[in-house]
């Protein structure tokens, strides 16, 4: 037989072409599955307990309806966060979500008048064809209730400061949103020729009369509102109680909440609420994760036992006769 040239068509002998690549071939054997389930179960129960206990430690106080005096029965560990919540409110509705202009909100005055392909209709222009800034449904429907919290000390109301700054995401405040440059040294002039959103009582550059810097597109309540909620039931951060006497928390006592009620929710069947809460390493109060971990962990243990029993009873015998 000739060697060499007669074997020109011989395929290469590599692990790849011959499908002999070294490989790990795990199988679902009892030795892996049953201990695996047990371990996962134990771990889950451990995590679940930790989560549950943590969540239990979080204090929260929910205020619904019109009652305005509340008793805090024990020391409310700070920092305490003040949230407002809405239900049946569809911030995640698609046409609602796209109703804004990202270029405009990044401070580009060119887009005050000119539309990119963002659609702000019907809140682009008012009846006199003046451009609305900020345009669109989201901005227009900004939550407008205001809150003041007082501690009743010896019959006297002592205001608890609600810090409305530092409540928005750093990226939103610093990158995503920007105010237009001052025109003639005036912030308001930058918005000249535009009108405020229909539902607003104040123009965007006067949202926070107390702090000039907290205005325009960088008003933190505005930023919080503009970050649409994922679900129709949501709560948004209104302020932090982290200053003065209350920096360490709210002492036990009676508190009065003054609500400037201006935001209509009854018409669409929604509700409002106010929540005071502190946080832990795993965030706000949410029992779900802890309970879920506990339940799943227990189920894993049960399942491991069931599998053990079935394995002991039925495990397929290694008989060769049918092979």
């Amino acid at each position, binding site marked *: 037989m000739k060697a060499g040239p007669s074997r020109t068509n011989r395929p290469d002998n590599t692990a790849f072409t011959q499908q002999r690549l070294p490989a790990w071939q795990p199988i679902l054997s009892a030795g892996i599955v049953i201990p695996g389930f047990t371990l996962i179960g134990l771990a889950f129960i451990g995590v679940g307990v930790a989560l549950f206990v943590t969540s239990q430690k979080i204090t929260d106080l929910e205020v619904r309806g019109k009652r305005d005096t509340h008793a805090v029965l024990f020391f409310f560990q700070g920092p305490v966060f003040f949230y407002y919540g809405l239900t049946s409110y569809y911030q995640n509705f698609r046409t609602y979500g796209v109703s804004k202009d990202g270029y405009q909100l990044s401070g580009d005055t060119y887009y005050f008048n000119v539309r990119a392909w963002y659609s702000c209709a019907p809140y682009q222009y008012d009846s006199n064809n003046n451009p609305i800034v900020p345009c669109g449904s989201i901005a227009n429907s900004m939550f407008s209730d205001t809150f003041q919290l007082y501690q009743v000390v010896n019959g006297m109301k002592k205001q608890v400061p609600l810090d409305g700054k530092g409540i928005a995401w750093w990226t939103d405040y610093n990158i995503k949103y920007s105010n237009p440059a001052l025109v003639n040294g005036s912030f308001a002039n930058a918005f000249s020729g535009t009108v405020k959103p229909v539902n607003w009582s104040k123009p965007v550059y006067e949202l926070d009369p107390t702090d000039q810097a907290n205005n325009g597109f960088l008003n933190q309540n505005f930023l919080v509102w503009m970050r649409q909620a994922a679900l129709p039931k949501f709560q948004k951060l209104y302020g932090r109680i982290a200053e003065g006497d209350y920096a360490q928390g709210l002492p036990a006592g009676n508190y009065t909440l003054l609500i400037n009620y201006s935001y209509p929710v009854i018409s669409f*069947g929604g509700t409002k609420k106010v929540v005071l809460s502190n946080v832990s390493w795993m965030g706000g109060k949410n029992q779900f*994760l802890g309970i879920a971990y506990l339940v799943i962990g227990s189920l894993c243990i049960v399942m491991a036992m069931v599998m053990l029993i079935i394995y002991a009873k039925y495990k*397929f015998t290694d008989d060769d006769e049918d092979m």
Partner: protein
Amino acid sequence: DREFNLSFKYANNAIKTSKYNIFTFLPLNLFEQFQRLANAYFVFLLILQLIPAISSLSWFTTVVPLLLVLCMTLAKDGSDDINRHKNDRQVNNRRVDVLIDGKLKSEKWMNVQVGDIIKLENNQFVTPKDVCYFGETEKWEVHCEAPNNRLDKFTGTLSVQGAAYALDNERIILRGCTLRNTEWCFGLVLFGGPDTKLMQNSGKSTFKRTSIDHLMNVLVLFIFGLLALMCTALAIGNSIWEHQEGTSFTAFLPRQEGANADFSSFLSFWSYVIILNTVVPISLYVSVEILRLGNSYYIDWDRKMYHTKSDIPAQARTTTLNEELGQIKYIFSDKTGTLTQNIMVFNRCSINGKSYGESLQYLGLCEKVDFSWNPLADPKFCFHDHSLIEAVKQGSREVKAFFRLLALCHTVMPEEKREGELFYQAQSPDEGALVTAARNFGFVFRGRTPDTISVVEMGISTAYQLLAVLDFNNVRKRMSVIVRSPDGRLTLYCKGADTIIYERLHPSCSKLMEVTTDHLNEYAGEGLRTLALAYKDLDEAEFEVWKVRHHEASTTMEDREAKLDAIYEDIEKDLMLIGATAVEDKLQDGVPQTIEQLSKADIKIWVLTGDKQETAENIGYSCNMLQEEMTEVFVVAADTAEGVRQELVNARKMMSPGSPDEPPVLKSGIIGKKSEEVLDEKVEGEYGLVINGHSLAYGLQEDQQLELLRTACMCQTVICCRVTPLQKAQVVELIKKHKKAVTLAIGDGANDVSMIKAAHIGVGISGQEGMQAALSSDFSFAQFRYLQRLLLVHGRWSYLRMCSFLRYFFYKNFTFTFVHLWYAFFCGFSAQTVYDEWFITLYNLVYTALPVIGLGLFDQDVDDRWSFRYPQLYAPGQQNLYFNKMAFVRILLHSSYSSIILFFIPYAAIQDTVRDDGKDIADYQSFALLAQTCLLIAVNVQLGLDTSYWTAVNQFFLWGSLSVYFAVTFTMYSNGMFLIFTSSFPFIGTARNSLNQPNVWLTIFLTTILCVLPVVAFRFLLIQLRPTMNDKVRYKMRQDKAVLPPLPRRFPRRRISTRRSGYAFSHARGYGDLVTSGRFLRRNVKSRPTLFPLAESPVAESSPQIYRSIDGTQSSKQA
């Protein structure tokens, strides 16, 4: 003549297989691509997305995948076409000698014209043309059929000076063939370029689709239905929401002008069509093609299917049928050249009552006989019985006569290229084997002229005068020569079927006859093809008389054949018996083992051969298809329709006494496309069926088809003999039509082409003469035994991979899509997406593309050795267990479950949750990121569960995809991207703000575990409670630390058996006579079915038989 021929404008011989040129490539290819349904669907979506009121996703979610698919196809088509251009150029520029103006001139192939006479040389590729062979003539004219694509047929006439000669398939050489064993020859170009049969064949052949393709079509229809259903449901949901909530919510979310609740629900229908479009597996088609291509390359690359001797690797000629290889239920095999090598080996002989070549050789005890004393011996010949060579050397008269006969009585042509290097060109390999045997034993046939034969007898050159050749035909079943030896003696040498010879023996031989008969029985029992040899010394005067009569008969115009036969009959009588030869029809290597493996894999093997019944049956036994242990082997050979039916029914009743008269039928199919499937019937015991051609013709009639089918399918093995190429295809079609089974046809010759094309998968044995079978096949390789590797390893893996791939692919896309469904209930059915648009764009293309392809390219449940050890592992493919409608429904349920988990766990976990600094995290963007991360990790872990063979590549793909996901996500959500493309990347900061939260990761972990653990538990319990073959083997493999248990010790192939004989030149009637005489019955007599035929039908007799006992291999001959 060139000018004259040119005037007809025959097709130019330049061939063009390429489709495009530089300028037409882009527009033409794009035009073709957009005609595809998948791309059209993309465009439809794109149009929907451009309508602002509907557009729920940005345009790029569709454009990016579309561009990618277009570019990939462009690249592939482009490179294919470049290759074609190259090939065309190479072929067109080959040189050939053309006869122009009486001189040979070297020309490029593309300049050769129809009507040219060209000279072909040995081993030269007959490339671009069909050539007709003929001798030297002067004035000629050829009439032939119009160009067509029938490879196995040609009709035409050649008129030379008024005389007409028929031109048939035997006389032409097709493009793509190689000239073999012929120094050179002249040919006339009949068709050029695109008119050649090969070119007519290529590209236009029917496009084969796999059963999975068909299933996919059904599923895609179903998925479109599902999509419409989901969108309708969601549109209705939207309508309800708009009426109940939307109306009152208008204070914050005003409707668009002129839009009421109903119109908005109409719009939301289309919006959801866009969002949910990912249920329709568009990118699936691209991936499936990649997988099939990859798995085809494995076949091309497999060294274990590479034949070293002929330097031919296996080749997947069709790259779209791979998974079908794992589902074969029926194999239709040709015999000669496929199961057998078409090599005959002189094995035993009986001379003057003494048998030589005892079967000791099979035990390997005996040394080969040394033929070195004979300079003219063929070195390849081997024989193991030394006593024969002793007998020759001692100069025994009978032995000398025996070999002298073999050296003289034949029609072999010798070729002596160099002194002492002899080559024999035999029309039948049997003859070649016999003449070679004589040569090695010192009776070297060295040359012939029309009236002499030169033989070197024990070193002495001798010339015999050849006086007459009494040729073979299928009625005579013998041939004789009459020669005059140098010393003047007149002798008639005759060889032929033993029954024929026995009838013509001189009474004095009766004792020798008995002994020889015993020997013949023995040889036949070993599956050898036997011939009896006899001679007769002629009287000079008697011969002179005969010669005159012979001349008269041979010149009569009427009834020449019959008259000649009668004359021959006169002289071939009172013969003296010399002995008998036994020739082995050599099986290809490993055929019995392969057959055994395949039948263990529950594949039914049908042999369809043009051979005679006994030859076929014999081979059936020797390659393990028919076994002594079989309960019964039925033979159907009736020659009336009713007779055939009766025999079939009898056989069926015997196998299954309770079988109903009406076949059990499963009717199915959608309206308009009814299909009937005949179900398998249970049979106790193993049976074989042998049916011959004319019975088959009746059996294939419309009214008997089902009867034939039922009976045949109850048998383990079916052998159809004396079938025509057309019948081969009909049998395949019959199974295809009535059985929901995948068929494979394997063959090597032109007569197998029809069946190769008809079957779901055609396999060609390449490397034989004539490439037609390989050319029209889907897979080709050099040896039959590679079939087991093709099916049990490549086929099984391909099927497994394809199914794993499809299951996972559907799972990941459904899961991905269904999450939107649940979210709809919480976003007012507004067609809000759960994920970031970029995630939607890249999910299929980038994040999950490679791991699933890795699964489809590398996965294997058990390796090849274990696949061979347990051929039963093949069964799931045949039963279509891994991917069918039920499996699809299971995927739907699984996906629904996963999507519920993937939506509701994050939903519950994010409810009213805040970050650890009190800021919001329940916003839409964070939720989207959470949901998509959960999804991606969960589907990847699921992939891990589905992968059973983790190569480094799989690991790399999996971890790589996850890393790419996080890298891309962080990049797209970075400040820089936002500042550059403000509008495209609104998710700025989401990843940073939410993925640093422990509760986000705890949610991701919980979701993944919840998606996966139930599957693990379910699979584990399934393995324990209802383990499949697969589970057991994998378990065993693990236990034994991959030490393969040895194959159960097979008894060595039994040589001493009781098989029926096959006579190389004998005919069915002789066989029948033998059986009735009882002499050839097996020793341990078992009852045979009563349907055994006594009489041979005239159909078989009248069917043409060439002087050779092979079928298949159409050797090209010179006219």
